[in-house]
């Protein structure tokens, strides 16, 4: 069980309100990702749920019971920190057993649960080493192990992969998703990386300056961004946002066209521009086109083999069905 409900939650540090009144429900067993640029309040929100910060006004309920004033330990949540926060003077085994020892569990039960966690996370080879002797990925696993032995109502992850190198990050991402399927427990995951959000989440919560911009499944956010901010934030490379007369032709203040929804041609098209820098990924190429009215540079995604080089003339045609239109307030026009 692990349904978490926030009602009119606010948080202020002194006179500065970092979280304006906010409502959010996270269903049991859901993998929810809080995503937003740095400083958007996503970590603060997680810490409010964890109980590491007091909320200024509002209510938090876990599984239907009010948890607003409850100390962190009583909320039944487990957290994995960005720095892993392993206890450096304890072996891996003792680190994982620590929450159980604090709960005054008997020795046999502790051993059983630690062994089970070690099994799930493949910690067997270094269970008696200290955190200082482990690599980043191994430390990450230990931190997760320390969280799962408690059998919490929900897991909270605070940018857990940001200290790992790119290859390891992809691997750990898969492991965390695998773990979610295995345990079927609510997980809340904070990240600034929209790729992590898109790949892992059942539900994404996009935050900006403490406000929830949009809540929805990854594809909903990709296909129907509620406003300009979400449109620009979700998707890689970023959506091209065009303002001015070109947008007015479509009865909008701003139109958005994703790089992958644009057709590139050397002979004809809606817009004409000059090819700038090309990013070759092998499977795809991202071309930056200069000279498109209202948007500079315009990014277009095309296949791995491109005949165009720097300085050439190119023509672009947007896919009219997949164009996004936004009004003067930046909201989507349906």
């Amino acid at each position, binding site marked *: 069980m692990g349904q978490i409900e926030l009602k009119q939650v606010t948080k202020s540090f002194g006179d500065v309100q970092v979280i304006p009144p906010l409502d959010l429900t996270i269903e049991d067993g859901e993998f929810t990702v809080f995503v937003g640029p740095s400083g958007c309040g996503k970590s603060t929100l997680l810490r409010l749920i964890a109980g590491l910060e007091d909320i200024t006004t509002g209510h938090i309920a876990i599984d239907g019971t009010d948890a607003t004033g409850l100390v962190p*330990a009583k909320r039944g949540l*487990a957290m994995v920190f960005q720095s892993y926060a392993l206890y450096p003077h304890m072996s891996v085994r003792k680190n994982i057993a620590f929450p159980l020892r604090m709960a005054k569990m008997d020795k046999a039960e502790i051993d059983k649960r630690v062994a089970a966690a070690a099994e799930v996370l493949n910690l067997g080879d270094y269970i008696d080493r200290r955190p200082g002797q482990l690599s980043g990925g191994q430390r990450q696993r230990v931190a997760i192990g320390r969280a799962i032995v408690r059998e919490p109502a929900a897991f909270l992850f605070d940018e857990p992969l940001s200290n790992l190198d790119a290859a390891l990050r992809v691997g750990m991402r898969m492991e965390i998703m695998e773990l979610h399927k295995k345990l079927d427990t609510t997980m809340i995951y904070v990240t600034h990386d929209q790729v992590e959000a898109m790949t892992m989440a059942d539900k994404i919560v996009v935050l900006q300056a403490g406000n929830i911009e949009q809540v929805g499944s990854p594809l909903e956010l990709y296909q129907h961004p509620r406003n300009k901010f979400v449109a620009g934030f979700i998707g890689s490379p970023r959506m091209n946002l065009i303002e001015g007369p070109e947008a007015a032709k479509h009865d909008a203040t701003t139109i958005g066209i994703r790089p992958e929804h644009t057709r590139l041609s050397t002979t004809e098209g809606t817009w004409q521009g000059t090819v700038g820098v090309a990013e070759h990924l092998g499977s795809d190429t991202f071309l930056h086109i200069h000279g498109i009215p209202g948007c500079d540079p315009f990014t277009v995604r095309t296949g791995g083999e491109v005949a165009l080089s720097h300085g050439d003339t190119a023509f672009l045609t947007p896919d009219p069905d997949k164009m996004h239109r936004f009004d003067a307030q930046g909201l989507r026009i349906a």
Partner: protein
Amino acid sequence: MATKASRSAARLMMAPAVVLLMAWMLVPLSMTVWFSFRKYLPLRGGDLGFAGFENYGRFVSSSSFWPAVSTTLIIVGSVLVITVVLGVLLALLLDQPFWGQGVVRILIIAPFFVMPTVSALVWKNMFMDPTNGLFAHLWRLFGADPVAWLSEASTGSVVLIIAWRWLPFATLILLTAIQSLDSEQLEAAEMDGAGPLQRFGHIILPHLGRAITIVILIQTIFLLSIFAEIFVTTGGAFGTRTLTYLIFQRVLESQNVGLGSAGGVYAIILANIVALFLMRIVGKNLDA
């Protein structure tokens, strides 16, 4: 320091400093050893030739030797316990955010800047004096008989004076250590269900292990040679004669340089034994 040339240049550059430091250490040490084998009575005939191991024998067989050793160990041990325990508590307190933190931190350090002689005189005359001291006034206020601290509770009083001076030192080092503790570790422990006392015992105290080791090592070195506080307050009477003070008395009050030097050699041996024990007990904290 990669090439042969730079290595030999480095050696050449360091040589003057090394030679000076060696001389600084070795000359007094060898003079002490040399005098310890001589019968040297400056006011009673001067240097009277070799004495063999007579000085060593006499120093140990004197009835004041073992009491002096035990007094030394008691004073050093009590001061260490007081400064480390109170130092940890004070450091925890000073780590909390409160108004005027900066000023309080500077004030806390202040006693360490007071010279030992001055602090001992202040304690002796202003606080512990049986007729005019503040303690005497306080005792009389409650109708009790004033205590003659330095004669009736002499060792305790000396320990108090020394601990007062060294507590700031311990606090300062322990405070910097506490500040270097990653706050996420404490938060993780909080999430794991550890209460304040358990967080202290399982997270903060192990984190302070290394700092406590350093405090103990440095303080032991200085406390073994404590002198001014005893000289100014009790003059070595009432069971406060430490080994250092005994050596001082042999050399200057009995005018027996040979005997005092032998005591000096014993003091070196004692210091090394203590250091060896300390390294065994706490030194492993420095590895990890």
